[in-house]
């Protein structure tokens, strides 16, 4: 797995999976790609299909309707891949705790590697989280 993990740290392509979020986390992710933060200079590109992705960015509470879909998307992602949970909703349920449509948290549905808290986390926070993850992967590889 070593070489594959190492390759992963070079230019991770990410796929954004929203599982019933309020959009704020999603906007902040897109914000990371626009001129002020410009994540693309690190080779991080948002791709349109999980099949091309090295990492999943999951935002939002797992709603019932999204659980099978999230599993499917996770299975489509080539392994090794990482899952990044972004926002309080994806970490627990945040303000929506106790809702009747959210039986599970994200990490009960798919394995999560790193959590980025905040509602929504600032773009700086997201970038810091991703950078930490890359450092961690480099150590492992």
């Amino acid at each position: 797995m070593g070489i594959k993990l190492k390759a992963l740290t070079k230019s991770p392509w990410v796929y954004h999976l929203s599982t019933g979020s309020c959009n704020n986390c999603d906007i902040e992710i897109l914000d990371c790609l626009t001129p002020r933060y410009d994540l693309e200079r690190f080779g991080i590109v948002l791709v349109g299909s999980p099949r091309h992705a090295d990492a999943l960015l999951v935002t939002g509470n797992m709603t019932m309707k999204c659980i099978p879909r999230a599993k499917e998307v996770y299975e489509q992602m080539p392994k090794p891949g990482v899952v990044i949970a972004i926002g309080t909703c994806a970490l627990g349920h945040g303000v929506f705790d106790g809702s009747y449509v959210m039986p599970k948290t994200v990490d009960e549905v798919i394995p999560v590697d790193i959590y980025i808290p905040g509602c929504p986390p600032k773009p700086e926070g997201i970038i810091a989280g991703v950078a930490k993850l890359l450092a961690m992967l480099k150590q492992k590889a």
Partner: protein
Amino acid sequence: MSEIIPIGPYHPLQEEPEFFRLHVEGERVIKMDIEIGYNHRGIEKLAESKSWDQVVFLVERICGICSTSHPAASINAMEDLGGIEAPERAQYIRTIVCELERIHSHLLWLGLAGHFIGYNTVWMWVWKYREIICDILDKMTGNRQSYAMFKVGGVRRDILDEDIPWFLKMLDKFKPALDLFKGAVMDDPVIHARTKGVGVLTTEQAKKYCVVGPTARPSGVAIDVRKDDPYFAYEWLDWDMVVLQEGDVFAKVACRILEMYESMKILEQCFKKMKPGIVDLHVKELPPGEGIGRAEAPRGEVYHYVRSDGSNFPVRYKVRAPSYMNIFSNEVAVLGEQVADAALILAAVDPCYCCTERIIAIDHDTNEEKKLSSSDLLRLSHEKTIRVKKELGIS
């Protein structure tokens, strides 16, 4: 032409994830079915288990982009219930936050509309200048989104007088950018060719489908809660409602750009007219009864209803968001249009058109279903822009 699209089937235009089924004959769309309900989070039920103060935080998270319109409607409803009148300074602060949000939301949409027709430069530029608005909000409220400013009987934070010159300076910095966007959209022949006469929603159709906000106003329906049922400080300010007649995608773009100018006008007046004073009445209790609140979100009218039995929690909470009416107007707007235009038309009402689901195109001759993902739709749209450019002799 770029084939890599840095945006997935999930994108930030989604208030409610929706599922569209387009029926096409060759290139033409002849019918469309819509299904929504993928982002159901049970908010109305949850609201019944939250205290009045917490409800405002909850409704803020209905939609991140309108993260101040829902609280606005919510406190309007609660103040209606309690017969409370917030202090004047608080009303101005509320108006300021609402209008900043409108600008940021319209910019967000403009950028994505640019992306849909294959102008990624527009996207990047617009989002670059959106940061100015985000900075203002950040300094004013402490967060770039989800501002948590509103509460029954006032606002949570005052605007410091020493910060106001800085806000005005930033707004001045933003003005040339707005002119730039206006010029870029109004003068570009390709944008004209791609959006004029496309996806027309006539006045009758707009009325029949009960559309609201910047989906209705470009179709000649003069409806705006800020004018019709003024709340906050809107009645003390001088501004115009933008109403256009054409109803096509171009009119929808133009309407949003012109509205940003109006918002700038409102903001400047607010900063000028604001007097020192208290900003919070510290309301402790709400009486039993009912209340309704309306607010004009960037996408149209938001409507909230509360019922109270005098306890700490609402007994019933009801929300109606603007996209709920607007997305169904797509049913008529895409009829007879090309599949390549579908992405743009569906996006023109500013909801999400492809989230959890993909669009299925049903070919009526063969009756087979072709699945088009969002990337396919974008590809079709981008290819059409290239075609149009060739026809116009622009490379």
